[in-house]
């Protein structure tokens, strides 16, 4: 399983705009490169990223081969209630990696 670094403020005031940063370890192989044998290296990228906050989608993105390896995605959301942010990254094989982070809202 790939590693991810997630930065969510652990505490926030209700109504605050909070910045969320995620960094996933992934080669993002474009499918356009040739290997040492001259053959194309098959495409293998993360093509979708979704973040839900207490079950509701607050951010999602489609990713394409031009995105660098180890994609860094940062976005903001409004702190509404204490709960959980769930991050999911889906690759070309359809495999999804999920990671969560708690947030406490006062």
């Amino acid at each position, binding site marked *: 399983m790939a*590693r991810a*670094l997630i*930065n969510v403020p652990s505490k926030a005031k209700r109504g605050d705009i909070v910045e969320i940063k995620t*960094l996933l370890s992934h080669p993002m192989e474009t499918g356009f490169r040739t290997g040492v044998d001259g053959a194309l290296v098959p495409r293998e990228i993360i093509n979708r990223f979704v973040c839900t906050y207490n079950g509701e989608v607050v951010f999602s993105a489609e990713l394409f081969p031009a995105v660098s*390896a180890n994609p*860094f995605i940062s976005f903001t959301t409004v702190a509404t209630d204490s709960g959980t942010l769930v991050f999911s990254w889906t690759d070309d094989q359809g495999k999804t990696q999920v990671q969560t982070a708690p947030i406490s809202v006062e």
Partner: protein
Amino acid sequence: MLARLAASALVLVLSCAPPSAQTAETPPAGRKSGFDYMGPDSQAMQKDDLSNPGMLGVLDGEALWNAPAGKSQKSCASCHSDARDSMKGVAARYPVFDEAGGRPIDLAGRIGQCREARQEAPALTREGRESLALTTYVGHQSRGMPLAPSTDARLTPFRKSGEALYTRRMGQLNFSCAQCHDDNAGGHLGSAPIPQAHPTGYPIYRLEWQALGSLQRRLRNCMVGTRADAFAYGSPEFIELELYLNWRARGMEVETPAVRP
């Protein structure tokens, strides 16, 4: 293609530079890390552990540190326990003199020795994911500490050879490391600023590579830029160059894992 562009840019830049004066080591007060030549965005990326992609390598290395491997089924931690204590300051003094080999050994080489002889596990390939991750993890334990190269007198002749390599012209373009990194440091090669070549942040996460890479990979890039036949990974020449570069940068802060363009 890129290399060719860089090479022609290099002829342009250096032909405008004044004829090479005698090369001299930068005095401590004037020493600048590659960090200082980067733009604010890349600096911010390095400074924030949650956006520095090199930290993914540190996490990988930590997992490997704790994983039993080989016939011994021992982990690095079985013998060295917590790396935060046992490996603190280790990277800052490498390369050191290796009794068994009778010559200097770098950090990746030492880790390779433990892996093969003590864990009894298959050798790690230099520049492979595992070797880089472990070296980054061990190197990271010295972050913020001054580079304190080993003063073992047996290293002196090897450091001298490193210095000789550094000042020797090489490649079809016939440049020495010193001509760029001493005489023209602070200038530009094409659009890239020429740093003073202090190896403070290795292994680094280089944006151009989109990956972690060792000092030797960086040096191979510089050699290919001068159209020289690059030394092999793990070769004595690279370890000698590293000895000299670390000596030249002594006292500077370890940044591992640094981000570089």
